[in-house]
């Protein structure tokens, strides 16, 4: 089956991204992980159909693709809310009150850790270190990082997400309104943001800068 016919039901930009990804690597199977993100973006999360499509694109079996997908926690194999709130509970954040942050997020979003809220707006999860120990406690919204998020800031952040329902979330904007101490204040400004609960990478990413859905 040709690559085009396998993903004929994908949006045109995602089909084009898949085509470019497959050309990037000498072996098609090397594209399996970026393609899994792309399939997640296309279907909202990584569906069985999405894994089978990636298998057909890369010449692997669905079982092999499932093996890769299930190893990594960032491939979501169940429905994800519009905003994925990832609360870091590793050591620095934990010592600075990550439990309270998580509790505040759970209360505001009505989604318990590891679940999605009934209205489908939020998925809440606790995660291991996200590399922001200097700005603990840290939180990600659709993998866009916000640092120095104390419990009341976290509540405000979730409230803002629900009330304004932004199409694109951006690190710098959220940091300004809801963040506190940052690890690296000299970092360059982020112009792009996330449009979906899928990590934004390079040319195929889900960033608002390249192509908002």
């Amino acid at each position, binding site marked *: 089956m040709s690559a085009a016919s396998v993903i004929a039901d994908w949006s045109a930009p995602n089909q084009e991204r898949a085509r470019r990804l497959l050309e990037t690597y000498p072996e098609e199977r090397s594209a399996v992980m970026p393609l899994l993100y792309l399939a997640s973006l296309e279907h909202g999360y990584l569906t069985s159909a999405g*894994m089978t499509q990636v298998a057909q694109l890369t010449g692997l*079996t*669905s*079982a*092999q*693709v499932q*093996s890769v997908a*299930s*190893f990594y926690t960032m491939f979501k194999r169940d429905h994800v809310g519009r905003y994925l709130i990832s609360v870091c509970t590793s050591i620095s954040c934990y010592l600075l009150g990550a439990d309270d942050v998580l509790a505040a997020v759970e209360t505001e979003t009505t989604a318990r850790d590891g679940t999605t809220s009934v209205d489908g707006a939020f998925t809440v999860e606790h995660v291991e270190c996200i590399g922001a120990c200097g700005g603990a406690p840290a939180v990600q919204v659709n993998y866009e990082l916000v640092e120095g998020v104390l419990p009341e800031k976290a509540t405000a952040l979730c409230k803002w997400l629900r009330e304004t329902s932004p199409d694109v979330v951006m690190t710098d904007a959220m940091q300004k309104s809801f963040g506190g101490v940052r690890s690296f204040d000299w970092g360059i400004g982020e112009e792009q943001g996330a449009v979906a609960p899928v990590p934004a990478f390079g040319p195929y990413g889900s960033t608002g800068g390249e192509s908002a859905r």
Partner: protein
Amino acid sequence: MPERPPPEMVTITIDGREVEVPQGEYIIKVAEDLGTYIPRFCYHPRMTPVGLCRMCLVEVETPRGRLLTTACNTPVAPEMIVDTESAVVQKAQEGILEFLLINHPLDCPVCDKGGECPLQDQTVAYGPGESRFVEEKRHFEKPIPLSDIVLMDRERCILCARCTRFSEEVSGDPLIEFVGRGNQTHVITFPDEPFASYFSGNTVEICPVGALTAKPYRFKARPWDLEAIESVSMVDASGASISIETSQNEVVRINGIDNDATNHGWLSDKDRFIFQAVNSENRLTAPLVRDDAGNLQPTSWGEALDRVADALGSVRGDEVASIGGANNTNEEAFALGKFLRSVVMTPHIDVQVGDALNPDFLVGITPRAEIRDLDRAATILVWAGDLKEEFPTLYLRVRRAVTQMGAKLVVVHPRRTGLDDLAAAKITYRPGEGPEVVRKLAAGADADYAAARELLTAGSVTALIGLTGRAEDPRLAEVVAAYALDLPGAKVLPLARRGNVFGGLDMGLAPTLLPGRVPVTSESGRAELESAWGPLPDAVGRDAAAILAGLAEGEVKVLLLVGADPVRDGRNPDSARAALAAADFVVSFDMFLNDSNQHAAVVLPVDGFAETEGTVTNVEGRVQKAYRSMTWDRLVWGPERDGVVMPDGPGIQELQYTPDGGGVRSTAGRLALHSGRVLYDAGTRNVQSPALAALVPDPAVYLHPRDASALALTDSQVVDVTGEFGAVRLPVRIDATLAEGSAYVPANLESTWMLGVPDVVTIEASSAEEVAE
């Protein structure tokens, strides 16, 4: 053949012993060859090592001091110093076992593996004796069916990856894989994509714990109650070595035995589970004779044998004929042939039934390849039935040669085969146009054939040649072989499928052959045999088709069916049935009633597979012992023969390469039938084995998309397929891998056999909505 140079030797020290070992070999292997067993779970000699289970840790001297390293994937190097039993190694082994047992249940008393379990055995031999783990073990729902045959108890799994590596590396259908991470890692299939592999049973056999079990054996017996004997699988003619395991005089399990010459220890699921037919309740247990009302009635052996003797005595010798014998041992075949030729005095003997290749070709072609030649071939040509369906263990050998030994593969077939993904060149042709393909390959003018031709002329070629389908003209194989033998360094392995068909031919169960591959027409050969057997008929006999024709014409009056079913296996079911009805007397030797023998005058029940003892000859001429005592590697057939009887003397026929195909049947302008065999067909033994009966695929007719649209047919539409010999109603499957202008109907599924094997078929949309059952 060019022998590979012997490996360079290096000197290493193992446990204080200085030894010379081949460079590049893994420590675990050289230690084992020297008599030092290093415990292991994930290491398997027929698969690439991965160093996953860590059980094989040994101490090796390095510039950084003595380090623990895995013996399974560390190659030996000059001056290496290895310690396999130091205190550090022992502590490591105890630690690994304690870790493995943290999550492994101690349910050995109810586990099928208990008693033959590497984890159990090695815990006793190398384990710590007690565990410090007091927390609760992991639990999983159990068991999970991975397929119709294989079940998975995940909590027992120690994540050695033997099963997943087998399915990726050896059988090439990685439908099972690790899922999850850390403590929750387990092996499973993709949802709704079962582990439907022809080779799934091997994973059960190599599982080092009781995580994988097969339904036919699960909870059936305990290993210490099993009696195991070494034998040969008769599912196909590749001669796979097996261990038949019985409990209370019933076969409960078949395992593979690692035979370097044939199967490397691997079996197809058909090899492994076909034994269920032997235990079937439908087996014939008493002789049956036809009563005055025309019904078969059980009777005594004396009565039944009297009737057969009377029938044989009431006609001339050449009015008697025999079909079949490919499920019998060489000794049985020899006795049958001697009886028919020297007592009954008939030459009409044929061990082959519907898919006959010229017996002179099968036994006489030279230079003949061994299975092992696949490992050394530069190019492998497969112009035969789909090996995955017809010769599954041979398929694994070809797969290994291509994926690991660097051979290039050329496949010629009317449709997609299981080997296509490995092929460097594939030629798809319409049935009937085979000679054209040979001509183009030989001439080399056609650009489409350039790749195949280049590979075939590049180096030593091993050619596997047989019938691609039952509708194929058998003479094509000879044309192909004649072409192949002109290729550089060529050897040919002619393929005929049935269990001991080559033994039958060697023992003279062929119209043209006397025992020992002597042509009937050889005066000197016959004279030599007559000096031992007395006078023999001197005519060339009838083959199976001519025997059936002779019955219809009244020239043959008494027929012996030796495990044969010409109604199902011949080209024309109706005429075969009519021929059997026209016979004066038909006697059948069989384990079951079938479409042919249910109209016989006498049916004699016979011993089946695993119940008889003797020798069996495989496709390469290798003679192996089936059942008890002597085994394949001890059987000596004379110096430098290595157990393989190569053709020599008067048996060899000159094969003429006829570029025009010399009268090979043509199907030009019509829809040619491709009647390919499938592994799980509706043959008696499959149907009588519950584990396999469930796997028989639904019948269908496969059409090329352009042919389908020309006929205005769509996928799953019900059509009437009509040929010269019969008609059958089937759903359409669109199949772009088929040659245009042909129709593929899998042979001998429920209903498809009624079509017979015509050269061409016509296809019309059926008025009925449903496929007739």
